[in-house]
């Protein structure tokens, strides 16, 4: 038994050392408050005045153009805020869409442009179509899909018709305008022509 004593003693001492070290580490961990991971706040890292942003397709053909009086870039979501923007969808072969508002937020590499406060999207006239204006408090432009939509009350004016409704979606490729709820359309009378209208013969 006597000659085993040193072995047992060293094992006990080692176990004590391990438990003690573990306990000290735990205690230290709890005692010192670690810094929270750096939270990225939505703050600009760059800004500029009188800006112009041009986006092209894979062949280098411009498909959208955004001008504005003042721009800020936010690294946390890679977005831009632009004051008094003029956003244009200028895809070849499609009528041009022009969006204006007081403020715009550009997201998804410039594909999604949220026009806010007095937003107005104009589809310019072409040789087969009259101009179409859609106004609302907020309108989103999707450049790749060539679509403008809003979920808010909106008014569309085209030729003699004024369309009001809640929620609108205009697809520039198909030329289709959808109004999702509470549609109210007012079609002004046609301008009277010079010659008298065809009258019905009395029997």
């Amino acid at each position, binding site marked *: 038994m006597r000659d085993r004593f040193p072995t047992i003693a060293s094992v006990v001492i080692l176990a004590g050392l391990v438990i003690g070290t573990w306990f000290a580490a735990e205690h230290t961990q709890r005692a010192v408050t670690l810094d929270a991971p750096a939270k990225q706040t939505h703050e600009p890292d760059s800004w500029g005045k009188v800006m112009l942003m041009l986006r092209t397709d894979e062949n280098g053909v411009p498909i959208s153009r955004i001008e504005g009086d003042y721009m800020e870039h936010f690294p946390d979501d890679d977005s831009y805020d632009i004051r008094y923007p003029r956003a244009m969808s200028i895809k070849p072969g499609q009528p041009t869409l022009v969006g204006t508002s007081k403020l715009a937020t550009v997201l998804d590499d410039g594909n999604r442009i949220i026009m806010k406060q007095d937003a107005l999207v104009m589809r310019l006239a072409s040789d087969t179509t009259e101009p179409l204006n859609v106004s609302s408090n907020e309108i989103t432009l999707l450049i790749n899909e060539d679509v403008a939509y809003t979920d808010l009350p909106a008014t569309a004016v085209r030729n*003699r018709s004024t*369309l009001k409704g809640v929620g609108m979606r205009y697809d520039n490729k198909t*030329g289709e*305008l959808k109004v999702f709820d509470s*549609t109210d*359309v*007012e*079609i002004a009378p046609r301008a009277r022509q010079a010659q008298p209208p065809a*009258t*019905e013969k009395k029997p």
Partner: protein
Amino acid sequence: WSQNALLSASSQDKEEPATQILSNELTYDEKTKTSVFSGEVIMTRGLLKLLADELRLTEDAEGYQYGTASMDERKRVYIRQDRPESFEVLEGIGERAEYDGRAETFDLIGKARLTRFICGKPFDSISGERVRYYQKTDRYQAFSGPNSDNPDGRVRSIAQPRAKVDAAIEACRKLQASGADIPTPPAPKP
């Protein structure tokens, strides 16, 4: 074969009214210049009102509109033309209605019936497979056919004697003079 019954009312040259259309949804197609209104459609054009489940409106190059109104359920398309100056209301129903903005005519098609109310009471009525109403000249015309509202597809027309009509108008005029409300047939809910 078609039997033509032409009933006429007085005609005036009217200023072209604006058209207002209310509905739950609208899809407008720029390429075909077609608007499809769906869900509780109420179209008002001057004193003319149309109720339907769906209204498909197209426009020609000169801006004239052409519409087709239809119903989803069993109910029928309803049109109503008020003529306050003679205390008249024209009410028409049919499975489908077609509107021609150039000729300013309305066709009720399929079990079609048009009733003229004076002072809120039904007086003349005309029914057939198709009833055409000329908005400009206030004339209406009925055509027979297999889908007529009457047995054996014929046109049926009931016209009250002129004296009775005049008496009803006179009664209404007195009501109006006394400041009472002029009775009119209730319009169905869309």
